[in-house]
């Protein structure tokens, strides 16, 4: 069966939501273990947008954000990317380093900590996807970019662009005490891999 990314039916969207739920749940647990604190997670939102609306969806296309990007390989080929806004990134590092926040720019050490957090979140996300589907999925080392939201988002958007005219992303919010961490996760399997995932779940 061929999947039409422009017309995903509601069952498929529900399945993707559920995958997001389980993946983010796993990621939350890993984060809680890492910082040894209770972390709450909001129910992830699955958003399907037209390209022209994508960069505004993160608030502002020119806003500085941090993108942590991985390649997926194994039974599934594609990419996975976390996008955090600056205050979320700072909060996350502050939580991890157990320090009070300041308004300084992120240091190299902070960025390296962030890429490690991204690594743990992505790996636990992928592990749950792997367990659910029975497919073997591995992720590469992370690559980090700090730049305009529009430019960072264009990377997953272009990959979706090969499959259709819509972009699909999962929005997750973590919270520890009063420090909010808001993250957007893009899971971008290549179209055959996307079909493989849905197939293994018995959806198509």
């Amino acid at each position: 069966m061929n999947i039409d990314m422009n017309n995903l039916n509601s069952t498929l969207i529900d399945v993707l939501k559920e995958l997001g739920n389980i993946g983010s749940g796993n990621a939350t647990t890993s984060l809680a273990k890492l910082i040894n604190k209770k972390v709450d997670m909001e129910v992830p939102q699955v958003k399907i947008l037209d390209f022209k609306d994508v960069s505004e969806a993160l608030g502002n296309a020119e806003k500085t954000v941090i993108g942590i990007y991985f390649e997926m390989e194994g039974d599934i080929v594609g990419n996975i990317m976390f996008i955090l806004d600056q205050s979320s990134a700072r909060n996350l590092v502050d939580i991890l380093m157990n320090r009070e926040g300041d308004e300084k720019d992120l240091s190299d050490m902070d960025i390296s900590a962030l890429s490690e957090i991204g690594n743990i979140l992505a790996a636990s996300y992928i592990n749950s996807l792997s367990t659910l589907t029975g497919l073997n999925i591995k992720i590469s080392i992370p690559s980090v970019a700090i730049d305009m939201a529009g430019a960072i988002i264009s990377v997953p958007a272009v990959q979706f662009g090969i499959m259709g005219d819509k972009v699909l992303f999962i929005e997750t919010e973590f919270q520890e005490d009063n420090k909010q961490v808001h993250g957007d996760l893009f899971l971008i399997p290549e179209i055959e891999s996307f079909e493989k995932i849905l197939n293994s779940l018995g959806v198509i």
Partner: protein
Amino acid sequence: METVKVGMADLAAVKAPGVLTTLGLGSCVGIVLYDKSTKVAGLAHIMLPSSKEIKNNSNKAKFADTAVEVLIKEMIKLGANKKKLWAKLAGGAQMFSFNSSNNILKIGERNVIASKEKLSKLNIPIIAEDTGGNFGRTIEIDAESGSLLVKTIGHGNNII
């Protein structure tokens, strides 16, 4: 002054005193066309080099090889003279780097090459470009002067 925002895989044309902008170009390329004699400017925000490699290619603004012709038509509607057009290019960055052969990460470079090929076929000269690198760009074309403002985070602003 009217500022028209052009989204990803989108295009638009304006006549002076209009301004066209597209925010946060990453690996995408902003193709700017301008006719000085009639002060008509056009901007296409393309995502992929070729519509021929892809089944799902109904949105012509998405591809370097199909967007330019549509953009020219829009500009002619506003009175532009096709023979007098010149072009400026911006974008085509590689935002993330990996030591792999992943073709998709080099899409920026391929977008720039495809845009140049298309413009050369149509005999439209490229008079300036700000492309490549590993950073995003916001661009703004002023239909009054034809000058193109390129804004970045950490790499300064540039008028080309």
